[in-house]
């Protein structure tokens, strides 16, 4: 995982901790919010280990269920996503190991490391149709960002590219934190509306 992926995570502790505490107090909807927040990241992470999409979803589901059942043991010593990602990676690796123990489908026996490398290389292979949809979606997102007013685009890119906190962005843009928050939301909302047809098409296909 590269640095640019990790930087935005630095500020996510407080919200997550609040949600985790609510789950620990018995609020199941708080866990729903955590699932919705991290499901794409977890699916993407597991997708690096496992190629088959249905298996990826199974492992992601298992990971979240494990997290839910053991959430009372989460003490907040690390960030929630770090804890969750560890569960997801271990679940994915266990899944690969369990697959390797099944009767072999080919004559060649592979050890776990080879199985892991094979799946890792296969996971980079997407179908041409999926690649095409992904490229179209990416172009639509960049186009929508270019169409944004300057202050919205700056706020969004400072947040997404540089991983700055709302407070840091407010200092750079010389405006209140509430304004930063509003600008980032409005920027996302505008881009989301622009790409919604692509997202809906992706679901139906």
């Amino acid at each position, binding site marked *: 995982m590269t640095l640019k992926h990790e930087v935005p995570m630095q*500020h996510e502790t407080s*919200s997550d901790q609040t949600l985790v505490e609510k789950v620990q107090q018995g609020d199941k909807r708080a866990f729903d919010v955590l699932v919705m927040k991290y499901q794409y990241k977890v699916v993407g992470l597991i997708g690096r280990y496992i190629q088959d999409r249905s298996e990826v979803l199974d492992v992601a*589901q298992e990971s979240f269920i494990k997290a839910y059942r053991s959430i009372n043991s989460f003490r907040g010593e690390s960030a929630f996503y770090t804890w969750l990602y560890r569960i997801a990676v271990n679940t994915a690796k266990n899944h690969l190991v369990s697959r390797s123990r099944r009767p072999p489908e080919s004559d060649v026996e592979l050890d776990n490391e080879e199985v892991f490398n094979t799946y890792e290389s296969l996971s980079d292979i*997407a179908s041409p149709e999926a690649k095409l949809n992904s490229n179209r979606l990416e172009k639509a997102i960049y186009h929508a960002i270019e169409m944004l007013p300057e202050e919205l685009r700056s706020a969004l890119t400072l947040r997404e590219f540089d991983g700055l906190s709302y407070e840091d962005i407010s200092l750079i843009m010389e405006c209140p934190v509430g304004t930063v928050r509003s600008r980032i939301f409005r920027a996302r909302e505008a*881009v989301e509306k622009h790409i919604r047809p692509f997202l809906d098409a*992706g679901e139906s296909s």
Partner: protein
Amino acid sequence: MTSQNTHTPEAMASLSAMFDGEATEQDIAALLAQDSGVLARQLEGFHAIQQCLHKDEQLAVGLQDNLLMRIHDTLDTEGEIEPSPKLTTQVAVLPQSNVSWKMMFSGVAMAASVAFMVVFGGNFLLNSEVSHTPITADVSPVKATLPVATPLAELNQQALPLDNMKLQQYLRQHAEQATMTVGQGMIPMARVVNYPVQE
């Protein structure tokens, strides 16, 4: 999963802040009052934007609340909605504790009985040859009836029948080893597999 099917811009702004980890208590309270489907749909767009800007190799789209529903179904099917209790509680309710206590007690009892047999049985065998005294001796004064421990030197000097020689050799070696059976000598004794018997 519930609540309001409509969503306000304020709630979506709270969602955006939560997505960035900048949500306040009020934001989270507002989010928990929203419909999960609406939140999931909006978050899908937020994730797509983020993944695109972060140059993720594959854009994961189309999940919305499918995964969430699967998780709910699984938990409902297994009838285990609540998170499992803390580890300390799990340890406290382990039902095997009585069994382990019983096993430990029976083991100690067995070891004690074996030690008893080794100590007193060995002494009995050792003294059995010496007590060739006539039965009438039993009615003699108390001093004469008490079993007398025969010193090794006397044992060596005694003339024994040939058919009893082998047994006496064994008993003699046992008497030498018997010094280990007192007090703390019991533990090293346990390591002795058998006595070296001279043929």
